[in-house]
């Protein structure tokens, strides 16, 4: 396989991945966590059975890595308000109790292993910092809504 044809395959695989899978995830945060979960922690390689069967393991791996970098970049350039919104939506989709979610994300910091390989440490740290502040905002909002109405749905922003 020549470099050019491989590059074309990777682009086709990325398109396929965006169309079939990533389009179902509206937010960069969802996509970042999902794509990080397709990466093997021991080898750093990405795996996706469907994509690998249509293309090849190598092409699927590169397409997943490309989409991972893209999701990271989109999240990195999101405003803090947007990150809070994305985090809020992620809590709802994950069907976890907000208190448990916030405690787990504070303690385990799962986002720290979700960044693509070879990300610049400063840009990664900027994202972590934004997520820490977003978690704090979410928690204060949750506590406020709990105080206002103990039985109400906890994570609704004023605009929703």
């Amino acid at each position, binding site marked *: 396989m020549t470099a050019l044809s491989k*590059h074309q395959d990777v682009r086709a695989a990325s398109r396929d991945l965006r169309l079939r899978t990533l389009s179902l995830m509206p937010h960069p945060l969802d996509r970042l966590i999902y794509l990080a979960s397709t990466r093997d922690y021991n080898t750093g390689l990405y795996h996706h059975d469907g994509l690998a069967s249509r293309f090849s393991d190598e092409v699927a791996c590169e397409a997943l890595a490309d989409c991972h970098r*893209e999701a990271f970049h989109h999240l990195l350039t999101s405003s*803090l*308000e947007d990150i809070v919104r994305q985090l809020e939506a992620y809590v709802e989709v994950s069907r976890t109790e907000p208190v448990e979610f916030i405690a787990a994300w504070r303690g385990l910091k799962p986002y720290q292993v979700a960044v693509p390989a070879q990300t*610049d440490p400063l840009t990664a740290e900027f994202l972590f910092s934004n997520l820490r*502040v977003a978690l704090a905002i979410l928690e204060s909002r949750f506590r406020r809504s709990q105080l206002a109405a103990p039985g109400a749905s906890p994570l609704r922003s004023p605009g929703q």
Partner: protein
Amino acid sequence: MTSLIIFCAIGAGLFLLLLLAMVRRPSRPEGSADALLGARHALRTLQVSLLPAEVVERFLARDDLDYVLAAAPLSIQQLFLQERKRILLAWITQVRQQITSLQDFHFGHSRHFVQMSLTTEIGLAWEFAVLRMECRALYLLVVLRGPYGAPLIAGKMAGTAARLCSISEESLAFLAPAEGRAIPDDSARGDAHV
């Protein structure tokens, strides 16, 4: 009297040139390859990680501050300001480090690889000096006035750094064929530079 002034002016000019020639570090070929790779790495770090317009804009984004002031209690406002200050100071430090690495290459080794006129070298030295001054001023202002204390200087510093990067890129352009031609990518990475 007039001729004395002219001779003095010529003398002063020659003296300045002599000083400039002495200030220029002696250039030795050994270690030049390492310096070249270091400069290439510094340039790439600046262009890809530290200076893309979207990233710099986010570091300095005023809308984040407005949002936190409107939507978060005082303790979170303080947390946010501390975090941004920490990030901004780290960013300034890294830009300064990478720029120093580029400067060392330009004034120590670049003449082994590229022909640069004296005017260009003086212009470049001026740009480097201005940038290092801007870095110091910005660092001090962020320490004293917080992360949103000097948005204009921050923008100016990013602009000067980007200008120096493009000059350095031209002088390191001869490396491009050895690295292989980049295949055009139409994915939405958005690696725009300031």
